[in-house]
């Protein structure tokens, strides 16, 4: 099991940033995972001690039989498959069961899927870092194959025939010589009594025989969503439940001194109102339990009406002096000094700059941004009289919430049951557990089951924000236009000498390793605002800065930005990436980078872009993250008032040899690209007086239908293990757009979000 937890939860990087293990290196880990998730379990088959809702196995009865904790088969042939990871819109409640069903050789029409409870028998249960595919591609197929092998063994036993004479086809076992058949439903009870196969030695299907993997498969719960069924966390209802709102300090880290609780309690429908004290000062950065006032009422609307009346006196021990303009001032000042620390140094950069034919300097900046999951943070909790706790949470990381509850309420984790509901958007926000521990604490203090639901203001103003950042770049070119020297003074944020969560720069970040002399220095601005992973942490910001500056280098060198990149990556080869925070990293394959760059150039007719009308430009960018290689081209112009108009986007991606579910894959890629576009055009969280200014979608925007351009997504299939798609398509679109706008207007966007005023023609 150790390998399952190879990531370090305290590092706060599970949403991504950190590929957990190399595709090659992790092969062993995959098998270990398989053993832990399947092998260990399969041995416990007949003990009947799994937490699933399925009936215990009883041979000869009409009950459904459990082949292993993932697979239950009813006598009528209905196969119920457990999806172990949260469903946050990334499609894992469909994809993971597809992997099992494929190797089980079930008929997908007869498959039903069910969300798992949080339980170690399933192995890892989180949605983050685009890791569900790479971590589960092999183990889930082995779980399915094990079930198939048990069904074959049961049939062979029934017929007293050799196993080798039996084959399966979509829910049926056939005895080849005699033509006799038995359905999975008829065999399941017997199969469940047989010994579990040895998972690593199971033979998996030849991909050419796939009937489910690779087929356009709609989301398993989509029809129920469109019927309005109560699937989401916010839809949870418990008998005797009350509704809660929890008001936290607008200035992060402040503590409650007092509140007008009597007045609030006098409001209609209010059952209780009380002050909650947080666990420790670090909780504000870890999104643990922080100070606030809870209002508990008969309805959520009544709780909101009472919230309007609530007045809280906060202490002044926190950081009211922090503001976005102050951050900008500090960054400019820090940029004039030597970096406080070195992230990487190759060669002699100063010497290289002194001999450079041309030197280029530019300062880039991007803002803090919020996650704004459309389903506001919520959780339903029931602290029971017997001391146990039951929780229904829309979460990406159920274990994180349980851990916080166990600590804050002093309850053993084994007494806390966590139900994973459907999640109305994750994007990294729900890797945090603040809403879970708040709901549990309020339920405990109120003595009732409670549904805690944040309003949009609370949701935006209490997030773990994508941190802003500042990059002071310098590049040196040779007379031939080759990039010879590169420097980034990265001014980022931290607490003391510790870089804030998701605010770091990897020493391996491109173009490191591809430029002879290179220096990444770093300086920190003290930050009192919590930060954390947002979809493609690091990449969602760094790609804009680095890939825009690389474009500047190409233009300064008089080179085609595509050719400059192809030259930088050089011939196809696999380059080792040093381990990060003690974790092995997958190698970087320049051939795969070149492959998607060339594919997107072909599909977008990049080489013919000079024929575009004046005022319309094409921009290109590439980014590697979460094992995925993505190159994107944006075609754009600007309106008279400077508002960017995106005409079209082309994307080429390489996520290995198999697109597991094309329905989800193209949707993820298109959505991630539009998500990035929305961030570039609309999103900034600003801080004033230590608090977040924005309150709703009028001041913190998402992309809208009229701004969503046509998108072409192309996958380049290469012989590499399949990897995830939630995050890798996002980063390139931001710099590709800005690079297109440069061609269209001659103006370089060096600060996000894009300010149309700066693009207006004079």
């Amino acid at each position: 099991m150790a390998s399952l937890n190879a990531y370090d939860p305290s590092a706060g990087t599970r949403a991504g940033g950190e590929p957990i293990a190399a595709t090659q290196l992790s092969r062993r880990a995959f098998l270990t995972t398989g053993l832990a998730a399947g092998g260990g379990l399969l041995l416990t088959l007949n003990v009947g001690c799994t937490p699933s809702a399925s009936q215990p196995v009883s041979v000869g009865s009409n009950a459904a039989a459990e082949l292993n904790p993932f697979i239950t088969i009813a006598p009528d042939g209905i196969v119920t498959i457990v999806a172990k990871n949260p469903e946050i819109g990334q499609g894992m409640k469909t994809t993971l069961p597809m992997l099992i069903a494929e190797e089980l050789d079930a008929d997908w029409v007869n498959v039903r899927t069910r969300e798992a409870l949080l339980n170690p028998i399933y192995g890892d249960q989180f949605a983050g870092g685009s890791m569900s595919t790479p971590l589960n591609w092999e183990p889930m197929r082995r779980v399915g194959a094990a079930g198939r092998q048990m069904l074959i063994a049961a049939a062979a036993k029934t017929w007293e025939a050799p196993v080798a004479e039996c084959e399966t086809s979509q829910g049926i076992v056939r005895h080849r010589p005699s033509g006799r058949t038995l359905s999975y439903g008829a065999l399941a009870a017997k199969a469940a009594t047989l010994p579990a196969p040895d998972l690593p030695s199971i033979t998996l299907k030849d991909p050419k025989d796939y009937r489910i993997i690779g087929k356009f498969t709609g989301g398993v719960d989509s029809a129920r969503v469109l019927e309005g069924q109560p699937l989401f966390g916010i839809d949870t209802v418990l008998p005797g439940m009350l509704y809660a709102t929890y008001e936290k300090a607008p200035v992060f880290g402040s503590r409650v001194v007092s509140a007008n609780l009597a007045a609030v309690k006098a409001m209609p429908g209010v059952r209780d109102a009380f002050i909650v004290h947080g666990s420790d000062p670090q909780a504000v950065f870890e999104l643990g339990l922080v100070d606030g006032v809870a209002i508990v009422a008969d309805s959520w609307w009544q709780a909101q009406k009472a919230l309007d009346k609530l007045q809280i006196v906060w202490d002044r021990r926190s950081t009211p002096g922090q503001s976005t303009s102050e951050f900008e001032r500090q960054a400019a000042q820090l940029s004039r000094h030597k970096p406080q620390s070195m992230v990487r140094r190759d060669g002699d950069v100063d010497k290289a700059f002194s001999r450079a034919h041309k030197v280029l300097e530019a300062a880039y900046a991007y803002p803090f941004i919020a996650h704004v999951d459309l389903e506001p943070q919520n959780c339903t909790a029931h602290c029971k009289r017997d001391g146990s706790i039951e929780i229904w949470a829309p979460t990406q990381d159920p274990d994180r919430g349980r851990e916080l509850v166990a600590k804050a309420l002093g309850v053993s984790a084994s007494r806390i049951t966590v139900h994973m509901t459907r999640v109305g958007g994750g994007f990294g926000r729900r890797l945090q557990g603040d809403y879970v521990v708040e709901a549990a604490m309020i339920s405990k203090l109120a003595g009732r089951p409670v549904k805690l639901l944040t309003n949009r203001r609370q949701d935006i103003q209490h997030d773990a924000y994508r941190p802003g950042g500042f990059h002071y770049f310098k590049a040196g070119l040779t007379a031939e236009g080759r990039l010879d020297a590169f420097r980034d003074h990265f001014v980022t944020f931290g607490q003391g000498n510790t870089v804030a969560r998701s605010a770091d720069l990897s020493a391996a970040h491109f173009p490191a390793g591809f430029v002879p002399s290179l220096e990444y220095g770093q300086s920190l601005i003290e930050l009192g605002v919590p930060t954390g992973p947002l979809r493609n942490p690091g990449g969602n910001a760094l790609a804009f800065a680095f890939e825009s500056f690389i474009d500047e280098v190409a233009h300064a060198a008089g080179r085609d930005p595509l050719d400059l990149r192809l030259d930088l990556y050089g011939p196809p080869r696999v380059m080792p990436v040093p381990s990060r925070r003690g974790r092995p990293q997958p190698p970087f394959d320049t051939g795969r980078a070149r492959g998607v760059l060339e594919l997107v150039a072909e599909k977008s007719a990049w080489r013919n872009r000079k024929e575009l009308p004046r005022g319309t430009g094409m921009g290109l960018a590439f980014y590697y993250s979460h094992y995925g290689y993505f190159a994107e081209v944006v075609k754009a112009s600007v309106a008279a008032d400077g508002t960017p108009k995106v005409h079209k986007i082309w994307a080429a991606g390489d996520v290995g040899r198999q697109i597991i579910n094309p329905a989800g894959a193209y949707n993820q890629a298109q959505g991630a690209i539009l998500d990035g576009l929305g961030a570039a055009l609309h999103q900034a969280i600003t801080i004033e007086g230590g608090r977040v200014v924005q309150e709703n979608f009028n001041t913190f925007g998402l992309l809208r239908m009229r701004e969503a351009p046509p998108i072409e997504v192309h996958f380049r299939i290469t012989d590499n293990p399949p990897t995830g798609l939630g995050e890798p398509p996002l980063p390139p679109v931001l710099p590709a757009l800005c690079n297109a706008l440069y061609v269209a207007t001659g103006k370089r966007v060096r600060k996000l979000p894009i300010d149309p005023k700066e693009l207006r023609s004079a």
Partner: protein
Amino acid sequence: MAFTITVNGKKRVADVTPDTPLLWVLRDELDLKGTKFGCGMSFCGACTVHLDGVPTRSCITPVSRVGNASVVTIEGVGDSEVGKRVKTAWLALDVMQCGYCQSGQVMAATALLTRTPKPTDQDIDEAMSGNLCRCATYTRIRAAIKQAAGLSTDDTREV
């Protein structure tokens, strides 16, 4: 105070204060959970329902203003021929990711196609730009509306 409103063709009674938004009456009094809360200020469209066929933000519509209007929600919209076609197209093209905004999207799309059976891309932009999708499934929403309208799902906008 008791309000009688017509929801999906049935008379329903809710005992709430007059300023209670229709959204919370539907969700928490009548237990119709398909209509979603996103922003509470009409910016996102997750709470879209029909009032006499007009797409309406239920989060800012006090129950006292509903009167005799016929309220249709995602639970009932499939009873209409257009609503049924929209849902069918939505599933055929696998539009949703997280799905949270999708009841509002389907309500907006059904209202559009009822009014404009063969919408242009510009019609779609105008009718759908009030409904945010955080997963940004706009490409498939556009295609599904066209499919439900019997049009080609190709994106034919000028590029």
